[in-house]
């Protein structure tokens, strides 16, 4: 299976569903790294990862608002919505895999790959020119298959959204020429500030091209900075540089150049971490019934949570408030697992399994 080149509103909906899956796919690695930090240590690192994670959640909801606005239906329960880690990113970036692992230098380097900024325009950063050609992998969410059968991959998350934004504008322009609009969705499905809980920036209700473009701009700039800068247009540090702060042990302040933060230094205790299993899988627990039961319980809770978020994003926004309680329960279950060693393995603790069992 592969995505079509983006030419129709149906294609646009497919791409936005992929965008939602893409935003979600970053959460297991970020949350595992964050919760693997032993409470009472590494407050600075914890807060930086937490901020990125809640912004990814915001991006997920913003993408859902756009998808709803163009008459689509977000689905967080679709098969393969939750990837099996290690995985490639769902936009088709192929030169690295995303691992779900304990807080470590490797994890931060992996996060920097996920959040790498889009190359500036003069550096062949445009989607049309920089799409890479590579063999198909086993990964379920597809690259773009051209008419000639060639597969193209986006190099960054920013490029993926850029493609969505440009084609969305084009489709709306074409629709307007016919006295129509692509923004035909039910406004009652939009998530607004009343229901969107806690931080990460401002939720935007999407009803037309202007608000949709604004939402995409917020997503991409929070991730990668404004026009290659390290801050977004709200003056907030972009994700790549947030993570880089942890690597460098130093905060950026306003006016800093990329890679050279000049703010306060902070120490990172790379050892105050639960040694959780990398890319935890059900097969890791086959011989340990108690851990297996706890892992299955986590996974079931996580699936129910995704079902409820889907309900919230498809016409019952008030359910988002109930999912807040579920998120607290998930956090408890994270810690429950991550504090438990896997018997017979040297210094390896259990970790949640989010996705499909294969």
């Amino acid at each position, binding site marked *: 299976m592969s995505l079509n080149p983006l030419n129709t509103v149906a294609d646009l909906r497919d791409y936005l569903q992929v965008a939602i899956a893409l935003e979600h796919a970053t959460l297991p690695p970020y949350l595992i790294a964050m919760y693997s930090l032993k409470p*009472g240590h590494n*407050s*600075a690192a914890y*807060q930086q990862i*937490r*901020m990125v994670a*809640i*912004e990814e959640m915001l991006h997920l909801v913003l993408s859902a608002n756009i998808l709803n606005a163009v008459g689509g239906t977000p689905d967080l329960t679709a098969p393969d919505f939750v990837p099996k880690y290690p995985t490639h990113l769902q936009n088709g970036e192929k030169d690295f895999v995303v691992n779900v692992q304990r807080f470590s230098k490797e994890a931060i380097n992996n996060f920097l790959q996920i959040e790498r900024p889009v190359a500036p325009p003069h550096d062949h950063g445009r989607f049309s020119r920089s799409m890479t050609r590579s063999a198909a992998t086993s990964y379920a969410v597809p690259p773009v298959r051209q008419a000639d059968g060639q597969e193209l991959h986006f190099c960054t998350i920013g490029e993926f959204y850029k493609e969505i934004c440009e084609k969305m504008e084009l489709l709306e322009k074409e629709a307007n020429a016919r006295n129509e609009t692509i923004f035909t969705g039910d406004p009652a499905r939009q998530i*607004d*500030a*009343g229901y969107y*809980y*806690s*931080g*990460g*920036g401002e939720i935007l209700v999407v009803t037309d091209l202007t608000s949709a473009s604004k939402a995409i701009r917020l997503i991409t700039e929070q991730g990668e900075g404004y026009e290659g800068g390290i801050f977004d247009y*709200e003056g*907030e*540090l972009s994700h790549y540089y947030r993570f880089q702060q942890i690597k460098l042990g130093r*905060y950026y302040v*306003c006016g800093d150049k990329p890679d050279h933060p000049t*703010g*306060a230094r902070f120490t990172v205790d790379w050892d105050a971490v639960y040694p959780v299993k990398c890319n935890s899988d059900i097969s890791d627990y086959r011989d340990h019934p108690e851990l297996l039961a706890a892992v299955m319980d986590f996974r079931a809770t996580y699936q129910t949570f995704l079902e409820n978020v889907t309900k919230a994003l498809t016409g019952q926004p008030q359910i988002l408030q109930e999912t*807040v309680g579920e998120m*607290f329960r998930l956090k408890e279950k994270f810690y429950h697992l991550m504090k438990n060693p896997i018997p017979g393995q040297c210094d390896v603790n259990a970790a949640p399994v989010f996705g499909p069992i294969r």
Partner: protein
Amino acid sequence: MPEVKLAHAGCVDPAAAAAKFYDVVVVGAGVSGAIIAKELSEAGKRVLVLEAGPGHDMSLEGYETYLNRFYTAVSKDNNSPYAKNPYAPMPRTEDVKRLTPGKPDATGYLVQNGPYPLESTYTRVVGGTTMHWEGKALRMVPEDFKTSTLFGHGRDWPLSYRDLMSDYDKAEFELGVSAEVESQSYLGIEFEPGYVFPMHELPPSYLDKAVSRVVDGSEVLLDGKQYPLTVRTTPQARNSIPNPAYNGGQGYQPVGAVSIYPIDYGERCQGNINCVPLCPVQAKYDATKTLAKALATGRVDLLSQAVASKINYDTGTGTVTNIEVKTYDLEGQTSRTISVKGQIFVLAANAVENARLMLASKLPNTSDQIGRNLMDHPFLLNWALMPQVTGTMRGSQSTSGIEELRTGEFRKKQAAFRVSIHNDGWGWSTGAPYAQFLEAVDRQNKFGKKLRERLVDQISRQLQLAIQFELMPDPKNRVTVEDRYTDGLGNLRPVLNYELSDYALEGVAYARRFCQLIFQRLGAEDYTSYDPREPGYLEYKGQGYSIRGGNHWSGTHLMGTNPADSVVDANQRCWDHPNLYPVGGGSMPTIGTSNTTLTLAALCFRTARHLSQVLA
């Protein structure tokens, strides 16, 4: 973004502060001082804020240091997050003991002369007592402003509710109050047409609903009159869902945690049931949020570890010339005295410290009222087990209350009161949930499933009604200073004389019967008992009660229309000194039954407006 970012902490060193002449010198970095500093700095004025306690806390790390000290403290009293500091000591609950008649107790910071020991505390760090407050933000009812005329008790304010109404609006914006106009329009409380609170009410808890199902519409008899009761949500300075209709449809952005580096934290209440002393997620307002805005103007200097020690003034005109400030270094254990100068001096150090400073400075005291009329809200706790599991221990600490008895003709005879339903169950009265856990493990030998069942049975059914009484101003209740009582810097410590009037105790006796009746109607088992060994135990008309402190210090420099019987005017200007403004709870002539912070914040907005005209 909603959070408040701090580019720089705005801290100055003592020498730099001493070298400047400020438009306004503010003593105290609590809610009053922060509001005055913010309003005047935004109006272009240069402001120095002095803080007696440490000031390196306006960061997430600083806040977490407080939280961790609280988490690890054995006694989780409301000042447990704050380290003991001999140079700016603060009252602590553990210091309060039963008094021996005629014998002052000087073991804590406050010297308690009695006859009744006042259990209340305040906090001396940047942010002041909002660093431990619960966050209830009720307006006073209009009749509270003229109790002398209406009921023959207390004093009339020089202001009416209507005079203060627009400043209440401002205070509700600054503190970020969550409530609904519909549920708050009672007993004459009015709002401007179209007004809405910045955020929607915190939803009533499951426990609230269980109580309201029985209480709503039921009646009680008081002084020959039937009063129908309603359970209402309580306005609170705690982030909830913003009301899109706020400010003519502009909406409101909840204010999150103060931090030097962006952290996107503290947006909304998560129901951690740990509001006092500190909200773990900083959804509760504290004055550092306002102070951060003041510092962001670049016109505010914050000098912490600086205790105002003596006010000097021109004996001819009364004009204050400077304040002597003792600064200290906690590590080196050294101190030095500097002098700070400005055009206007604002004392925002709270009712006790303001009075202490004025008395220690031997200011002329024309009215003889400085330090007198000390008020607080006495509390009476009542606790019971509900017949069904009510999910106690979830939510913020209190989301609803009963307000109908906050005023009425009965105030001619006895104190008014309001009732808080406590989502944290018997926490305040018995130390729940820890007490029940220890009991189940140590004495009932429960473990495993039996232990869990026992805890659900004993904790999830808990209902505590906290009754908060009005206390009228009484010149005998007072703060004084005596040369023999000094702190680590040689500053004179506050000496308290405090007693409860029969007017208040008549209210207490009624309220106890009131709670017994409510428990009876709810089918709840009343577990209330008052231990004669407790510091606040007293007997009235043959019945024993334990009275707790409310931490709502007020009245020590009350406002009036006559220099002969009041300390400040309606703008909180000292009658004796044209450029001295003792502000905050101390200026309130009466406090009714509303927690004092919202009203004193409103008064500070009023005074800030007045000062910007004076300084124009």
